[in-house]
């Protein structure tokens, strides 16, 4: 099957992108990543804890040759903070990709669109491949594309909420209107049917973390999400039947016994 997700010229076999937070252990995370079939993993940038050096290094567990590492600016609340974090992230593995988050509100973790646009413009100018997390606003999406974003990543529900796809209409509109860059649902997916539904809308990919890491059995859920994304993608490509109010027999009417 040759159905690749292409972002900034880079090809990915899987349309599922995973976060790497909230796992009970590195071992569990590694197994979940494996089961999910993902090719891209997002990671946060934080100070090295110099007081407690017993903690294992994250990169001991994730092989950057196996997974494309997507550093993020999670936890940044201003454009300046996000830009600074992105600049640091680029140095760690000499990787210019960034999942850009500029959070505007602590309770909802909704994005600050103005700060996001400002940071996107600046980072694109600096040569970054920018994947911004934003709310599902078409106009903001267009501005992000104009600013040079390599993909746009609308939320489906608040981060970590597991509420599923709460904005079907807006995602449909985004899908129809944003065709220049990949459209990736980022945040809100709670279970496999949510992932399938997102993909059935025709989005190009889904990014998730809590939906898998927070499940009772993260490895099983990772596999479920893998299948959900693939099922949704296939259904989208297959072209669903139109919805009709009344029944439509699927058996021939001729030759029935009388």
């Amino acid at each position, binding site marked *: 099957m040759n159905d690749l997700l292409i972002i900034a010229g880079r090809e990915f076999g899987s349309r599922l992108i*995973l*976060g*790497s*937070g*909230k*796992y009970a252990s*590195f071992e569990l*995370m590694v197994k979940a990543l494996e089961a999910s079939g993902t090719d891209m993993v*997002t*990671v*946060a*940038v*934080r*100070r*090295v*804890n*110099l*007081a407690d*050096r017993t903690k294992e*290094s*994250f*990169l001991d567990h994730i092989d950057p040759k196996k997974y494309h*590492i997507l*550093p*993020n600016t*999670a*936890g940044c609340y201003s454009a300046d903070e996000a830009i*600074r974090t992105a*600049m*640091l*992230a*680029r*140095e*760690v*593995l000499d990787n210019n990709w960034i999942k850009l*988050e500029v*959070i505007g509100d*602590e309770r909802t*973790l909704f994005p600050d669109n103005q700060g996001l646009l400002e940071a996107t413009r600046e980072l694109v100018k600096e040569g970054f491949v920018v994947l911004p*997390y934003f709310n599902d606003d078409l106009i903001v999406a267009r501005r992000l594309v104009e600013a040079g974003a390599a993909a746009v990543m609308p939320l489906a529900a608040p*981060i*970590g909420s597991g509420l599923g796809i709460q904005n079907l209409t807006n995602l449909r509109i985004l899908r129809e209107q944003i065709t220049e860059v990949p459209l990736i649902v*980022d*945040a809100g997916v709670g279970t496999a049917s949510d992932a399938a539904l997102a993909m059935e809308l025709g989005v190009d990919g889904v*990014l*998730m*973390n*809590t939906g898998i*890491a927070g499940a009772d059995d993260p490895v099983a859920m990772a596999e479920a999400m893998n299948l959900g994304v693939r099922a949704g993608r296939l259904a989208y490509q297959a072209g669903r039947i139109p919805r009709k109010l009344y029944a439509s027999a699927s058996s021939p009417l001729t030759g029935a016994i009388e």
Partner: protein
Amino acid sequence: MTIVVNGNRTDIAEGSGISDLIKSLGLDTERVAVELNKRIVRRADWGSTTISEGDKVEIVHFVGGGEGMREP
């Protein structure tokens, strides 16, 4: 001399550079990034960048994280 590394006051030898600091902290040079007084110091420049009294150094690495997290 005394500098501040990741928010903690730290004593290092006079005339030390970024490379010396990273080495003395026992960090994996291929897995961290460094800021000196809020300016990135590229890995290639660690050897030639000296630290002065009172400088603020940030050393970061990758940790597990997806979205919207706060400092622990």
